[in-house]
């Protein structure tokens, strides 16, 4: 049995690491936040015990306002639906966090490890809002899409969850099998602005 286990993010084949530093002038900056731990959490947000359990397990309150997110050292939590959240944790810690949740939560809930199912693409740069306008029909104005908000929407012809990290930085949570399509889309849409990989 081999000791070195090779791990490949969904965009591994794009060889982004080899593109880093090739261009620095792009109006669009792309970074794959690869190989993080992704957990899908389901539960009843009206259930105080459930909320308390999550708080205890993660040290952070579950965001229950629609389209909100929360952050702690341990985890980043995104609201996906009234009974569904995405918990993003450090690479390799997903199993531990899952077990922790299972031990703190009682009653009706579900946790699924989906770390292999998706990746996070961070888009930023001076033209990032324009690229986003090409890609999603959601209103990107800060009044409607403030920092910290997360939405499930369409991105080109794929679905995605989009979190606004700062005024000009977004995180896209995309499915593994669609990631190549989205990579092609971003390249096409960035053509007029230039694309920098970091």
């Amino acid at each position, binding site marked *: 049995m081999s000791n070195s286990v090779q791990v*490949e993010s969904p965009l591994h084949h794009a060889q982004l690491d080899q593109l880093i530093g090739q261009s620095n002038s792009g109006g669009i900056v792309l970074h794959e936040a690869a190989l993080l731990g992704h957990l899908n959490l389901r539960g009843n947000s009206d259930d105080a015990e459930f909320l308390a359990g999550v708080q205890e397990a993660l040290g952070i309150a579950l965001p229950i306002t629609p389209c909100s997110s929360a952050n702690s050292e341990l985890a980043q939590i995104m609201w996906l639906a009234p009974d569904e959240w995405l918990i993003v944790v450090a690479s390799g810690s997903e199993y531990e966090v899952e077990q922790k949740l299972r031990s703190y939560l009682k009653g009706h809930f579900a946790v699924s*490890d989906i770390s292999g199912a998706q990746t996070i693409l961070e888009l930023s740069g001076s033209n990032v809002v324009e690229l986003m306008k*090409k890609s999603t029909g959601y209103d990107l104005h800060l009044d409607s899409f403030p920092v910290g908000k997360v939405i499930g929407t369409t991105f080109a*012809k794929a679905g995605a969850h989009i979190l606004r990290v700062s005024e000009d930085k977004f995180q896209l949570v995309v499915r593994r099998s669609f990631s190549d399509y989205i990579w092609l889309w971003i390249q096409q*849409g960035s053509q*007029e602005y230039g694309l920098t990989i970091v």
Partner: protein
Amino acid sequence: MSQVNRIAASSKRINRNRTLTFTFNGKEYQGFEGDTVASALLANGVDVVGRSFKYSRPRGIITSDSQEPNAIFQIGSTQATTIPNPRATQTDLYHGLAASSTNGWPNVDFDLMSTVGKLGGSMMPPGFYYKTFMFPQSLWMSYEHLIRKGAGLGSSPQQADPDSYDKMHHHCDVMIVGAGPAGLAAALSAAQTGARVIISDEQNEFGGSLLCSKQQIDGELPSQWVEKTVAQLATMDNVLLLPRSTVFGYYDHNLVGINERRTDHLGENQLQSTRQRVHKVRAKQVILATGAHERPLVYGNNDVPGCMLANAVSTYINRYDVVPGNQLVLMTTNDNAYKTAIDWHQAGRKVVTIVDTRESSNGELVKKAKKLGINVIFGHAVIEVSGSKRVKGVDIAPINAVNHSVTGAAKHFPCDTVASSGGWSPVIHLSSHTGSRPVWNEDIAGFVPGETVQQQHICGGLEGVYDLSKVISAGFTTGAVAAQAAGKGEGSYAGTLPQTSDPQEDASMALFHVPHSKKTSRAPKQFVDYQNDVTAAGIELANREGFESIEHVKRYTALGFGTDQGKLGNINGMAITAKSLGKTIPETGTTIFRPMYTPTTFGALAGADVKHLFDPARFSAMHKWHLDNGAEFEDVGQWKRPWYFPKPGEAMQDALERECLATRNSVGILDASTLGKIDIQGKDAREFLNRVYTNPWSKLAVGKCRYGVMCKEDGMVFDDGVTACLEENRFIMTTTTGGAAGVLQWLELWHQTEWPELEVYFSTVTDHWSTMTISGPNSRKVLEKICDVDVSNDNFKYMDWIEAKVAGVKARIFRISFTGELSFEINVQANYGMHTWQAVMAAGEEFDITPYGTETMHILRAEKGFIIVGQDTDGSVTPQDLDMDWVVGKKKEFSFIGKRSWTRYDNKRDDRKQMVGLKPKDPNFVLPEGAQIVFEKNQSIPMTMVGHVTSSYYSACMGYSFALAVVKGGISRKGQSVFLPLSDGTTVEAEICSPVFYDPKGDRQNV
């Protein structure tokens, strides 16, 4: 002779320092930056720009805008970049532009077809197609072949488009369509409230009618007010300005579609950016400030080049410094058009006379014209034009508009240009797009927007308000009102209004069709819709024949079906219909305008969703390996799945036989990652499975797997797969590749809408797992090499699953088989998929492990009689039809989905089509999939078909061909012969047999 009609520089809209050379019909001309192709052609004295569609009459430029019916060109210098049918009036001139007419053979000046048009013209009234070419029936296709030869305007490019296109989504408080005086005023006042404003205009610069007006605003030329206002808007962060951007559609819930032309004015092959961009604007409030189009008058031979709209003539003079002729006759029903005569006169050319159809007018413009010494004849009209390739003169006669008659002798006046104005028609098109019906406004003799459910405001010419001071004031007010409706500002404009004084105008006359001394049917042709050669006589004929609804008139005569979509002619056509039927125009009714406002490039509408981005292609984590190893791919839903793995020089069938034999005899490996996988958790998970699957789930133990079938409520199979019990209250369900999304949606539908009380959650984990199936007698040996647990038959039984480490990676291994061989389905977290795959390949090397694709998988499963939903079923097949009653729970308490429908009459028939195997009599003949089955070989057509082949292959392992099929009552017909009449005329025989061909006892998978 160059630019004979260009007068001394006065307009700032064209740049005399930049001369642009272009060609028209192969001849070289020059124009200036800022010209349209139309203004440049007129500057060069080009009269004939095309031939009419039906009669091949010479045609010239009539308008200066989107109404243009004649100057429809082919523009572009190569077969890849050529554009069919742009209007010269809306095409910005660029250096090297190559334009040609779209009709006329051998050329527009000498067109052979015109002889046919002249002779045959009287044979071609509206509807003539319907009345002839019927006999004999067999010849219609030949007639039609000839008719089609004359079809069309421009030609499609012959090569792929080098340009790209894209789209952008926007949201705003106030979207303003049209940047004329009303639109600009509205934009400024809305923007000053802090509202998010977008303003677009189809022209190359903002200003609309002000770009060619001389009416001073705040004591300056109106273009200066435009410049200042645009400059002010440009400094505001909350405003987006979109010139060269045509709103082509206004859709429900205030979605506005805009096409921005980004490089067309620069030339061809401007690949630095997308050629055109569609903006999709979701606006809280929309202000339509689209203005009005001038309406021509309908008179005899009104299509001879040199007949133009009055306002177009003024536009060419004031905006482009082009006077399109030498001697003008102006015919008008209103004061406003007197401007044209004044402009012409001031440009230093001769105004022969103004012909005013009214009895009198004392408006300021009338007085001004008279003061300049221009002759004015009241109570008269131009009833007929003489000339063919250019106006030579006009016949002017006294008319009575009320009883539509000529009341005296006509007098001939030589001239070369006839400008006409029948008043103005508000540009109501966009307001009609969402179903709002326009209403007739008698005061302005035009339609204005009717009631709408949209959050829509209108102002300016669109409302029928034409005085500039009122238009500007309405713009400022409407902008503020719209902003307030969007939640911004107080609803009124607080700033000072720019000052302008409108000339006093007398009332205009509602005249559309100018009478002739002859009856309309006998008068020279009076064109209503130029592009389709629709005449007043044609419309009256249609009415006489009983086509009385305006929609019938349109469809019978083709009125409004040109590329200007009736902008120029519709109102006149309606008025002629109304008059001929003795009705009013509102009684006659209007037609509803549809998108596109002006023709919109296909490429722009598709945006970036073309070529490889047409539809997402989905890949598994091992895709690159498949590519590197020469796989051919099959499209399954959006997935690209390996179909087979040919070795160099190997034909498909050879590859399949090699893959099958390797799997049956040693070990093969399949990438099964695309199967849908759903994580099901909760204490009611079992109950839920009981309800959606046909078979029972109550007793499935932890560590066990079970195959299940799902039906729709109509009892028909729609998906299948293996579901494993992970924990007491947790299952992992697999679905078909194509069905994954649908099944998850299906589960959610039932849970959310019918059984919310069941405590269960579903999450898709399809993409989380990479799945590789190793199959074949040596598969265990391969697995043992890289797996950290005992996978012997004693420890790991068929239909069990275990957790283990494979190649150092945590894995779930399912001992299930779709090939009938000893099989292990290894699932690892997808980031480790490639690693694990390569480790399995390395471990299997000594057994010559063979990758196989979907085709071999299909063959191997068919040998075992396993169905593929969607191939062996088609939405009309029950589990019973599949001889799979064993998968139907008999004791389940809940009436699971689909069950009730099985007791309907049709489901109880014993001659339903049932799944069976077929063995062709010729063991080497592979039946075509889709071949139809009959019992009676010699029946004549129509034959009684009793089923068809759903899957069919040659089995390398068994050494003969075989098939799966559905046959009426087939289950009880095993051993009988059926016949398959094939498309090549031969009929082959096959025997009905069990669908399980290989290892019927299932020993091989249990070892």
